[in-house]
């Protein structure tokens, strides 16, 4: 099988509420996929449950990463396999700097080259500068008192340092001004050039002007309802989600299923 990530018939619920109702989705090595969809369609649930957030219960389906079944693996195991998530709402950790965390995290990734700590810190600092983050950013507590934009940049900085084999960006573009969006996109493109596969979850087509995806998928009511090339993103931008969803729902009976 050539797929690096393969999600088959994934069903997920939170408490009694079904959120994902049979997601089928695959990413080939080095590919970039965008998952779009309106609020509440299950995009972020997909991201969180890919990494086994304890609040999300997988009731059916399977997730394979590089042939290994990770459906029930805890988040740390998944990360050590080389799949990382840039959070939509990153947590703040008092007294821990982004460099502290990265030092620990880098040690968990066997495939990263071992470099002296001083050099590692210098690299992180260089990266921060290139992302137009203020100098004191690296000495502040992680995400504590960061602006929305700084939080998103901090996530991208972490992934850029840890160089995963597959990176999921969960609404990394939301709340970013144009300059920040460019900086963030540049870093994501650099990762792609290193061979990292990328999944971008977004509401808007905006970020896709800077990152040209190989595939675009539309998610609606807990399923991927349409897949296509990057043209699909432009179509969504022009016609809105409702038309695309409407078109889809007219051809299937799946709305009944989602009410289960």
């Amino acid at each position: 099988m050539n797929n690096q990530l393969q999600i088959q018939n994934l069903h997920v619920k939170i408490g009694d509420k079904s959120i994902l109702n049979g997601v089928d989705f695959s990413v080939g090595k080095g590919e970039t996929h965008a998952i779009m969809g309106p609020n509440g369609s299950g995009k972020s649930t997909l991201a969180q449950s890919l990494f086994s957030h304890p609040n999300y219960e997988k009731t059916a389906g399977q997730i394979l990463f590089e042939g290994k079944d990770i459906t029930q693996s805890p988040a740390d195991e998944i990360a050590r396999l080389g799949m990382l998530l840039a959070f939509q709402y990153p947590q703040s950790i008092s007294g821990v700097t982004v460099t502290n965390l990265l030092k620990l995290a880098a040690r968990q990734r066997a495939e990263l080259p071992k470099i002296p700590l001083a050099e590692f810190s210098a690299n992180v600092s260089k990266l921060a500068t290139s992302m137009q983050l203020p100098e004191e950013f690296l000495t502040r507590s992680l995400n504590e008192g960061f602006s929305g934009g700084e939080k998103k940049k901090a996530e991208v900085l972490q992934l850029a340092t840890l160089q995963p084999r597959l990176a999921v960006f969960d609404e990394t573009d939301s709340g970013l001004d144009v300059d920040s969006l460019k900086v963030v996109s540049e870093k994501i493109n650099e990762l792609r050039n290193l061979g990292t596969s990328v999944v971008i979850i977004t509401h808007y087509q905006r970020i896709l002007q800077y990152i040209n995806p190989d595939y675009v998928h539309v998610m609606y009511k807990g399923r991927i309802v349409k897949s296509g090339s990057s043209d699909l993103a432009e179509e969504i931008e022009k016609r809105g989600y409702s038309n695309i969803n409407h078109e889809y729902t007219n051809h299937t009976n799946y709305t009944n299923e989602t009410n289960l």
Partner: protein
Amino acid sequence: MNIETILNNKTKEADLQREIFTGAPERFVHKAKTGLTREIVEEISWQKSEPDWMRKKRLMAFDFFIKKPLPMWGVDLGELDFSKINFYQRTETGRYKSWDEVPLDIKQIYDKIGVPKAEREMLAGVVGQYDSEGFYQKLKKQWEDKGVIFCDTDTAVQKYPDLLKQYFMTRCVPIGDHKFAALHGAVWSGGSFLYVPASVHVDLPLQTYFRMNAKSSGQFEHTLIIIEEGASAHYIEGCTAPIYNTDSLHSAVVEIFVKKHARCRYTTVQNWSKDVYNLNTKRAIVEEEGIQEWVGGSLGSKKTMLYPCSMLVGRGARAEHLNIALAGPGQHKDTGAKVIHGAPYTSSNIISKSISFGGGISTYRGLLQIAKGAHGSKSHVQCDALMPDNISQSNTIPYIKIFEDDVTLGHEAKIGRISEDQVFYLMSRGLTEAQSINLIVQGFMEPVMKELPLEYAVELNRLIQLEMIGSLG
């Protein structure tokens, strides 16, 4: 209950680490009967060949001890039985000026807790306390030449009677202050005496390790620090005690005199075994433009009552209090800070951090008093508590008494939990669950940790992680 039972719930790693607190031989040439009588106080003084003034002071303190009631607040002391406590033991006589002279079994213990290494590397002097008497002392010659005195307090009574008569339990912690101060006055033994003459800056920290090693022993060391005008010093005290089954009592007194424009930092990391009652009195008198800094980490013990106090008596005097307390299963930590602003433009800053887990109770108890006339004074108090579970307790009891209008005051109290989302976030970076929790705990302690000497910060971190293993996740 034997040691095996106590350790039963610990992980294997914790077991291995715990070994360093066990297995030390009891070593003394003289041991008094248990319980406290006038005769025992006389005997202690006689054994030490003390001058008459000290003998009288001890007896007067004993009278206060008998009359004073137990404190009716703080931790429950109902189970503390004075009649079962051994108030004095004397270890082998003689002091050791060099490491080579120290007996092998004592050396091994000190090796395990890392003293000699620290001493060799960077410390200006060491007075170690093995049971009740300082057994090892040394001060680098350069400080001695400048008139710095650093010795155990018993030696100081013999050699520097004028200083001791003037400062020992007189106006800082008087013998009649409260029941445990009186008890201490009657049976005190050992401790450190530090005298820094005017304008001398001791730029390397001076360090002492205290260690209680005999079963059911009391430890009543007395530390007296005098920093003369314009001088400065950093004094460090580390304490560990092995696991024993009967309740031990530790009741130390620390008295610090910070003169005009002088500065003193007092750092302590305490890790008493789980059966120790740790009831201390630590107080500093700070004169004009003087600075007193208290930095403390409190681990272990069964019950702790500790409220370092700064009396700011001179204009512009300043106090910094930084403390971290860890209360695990069966432990009750009642700690805090007391600051009396007794002069204009005095300032104080208090940061208190506590972690309660596995049913432990930690209480911040603070007194902040600004006297009439202490105008322009400032104070800020910050209390942060971390509770990783639902069965532990954290209390904040700040008393504030202000008798002056022109003052600036701030008080913040926060109680935090380790959230599932935080742990998930860190795990998604590849950290295990235990690593994630450790990192959150470390981050919480960071403001205090960064003020500790590196080796202490590392040790405290390690001990806290060890304590919390098994009770979390």
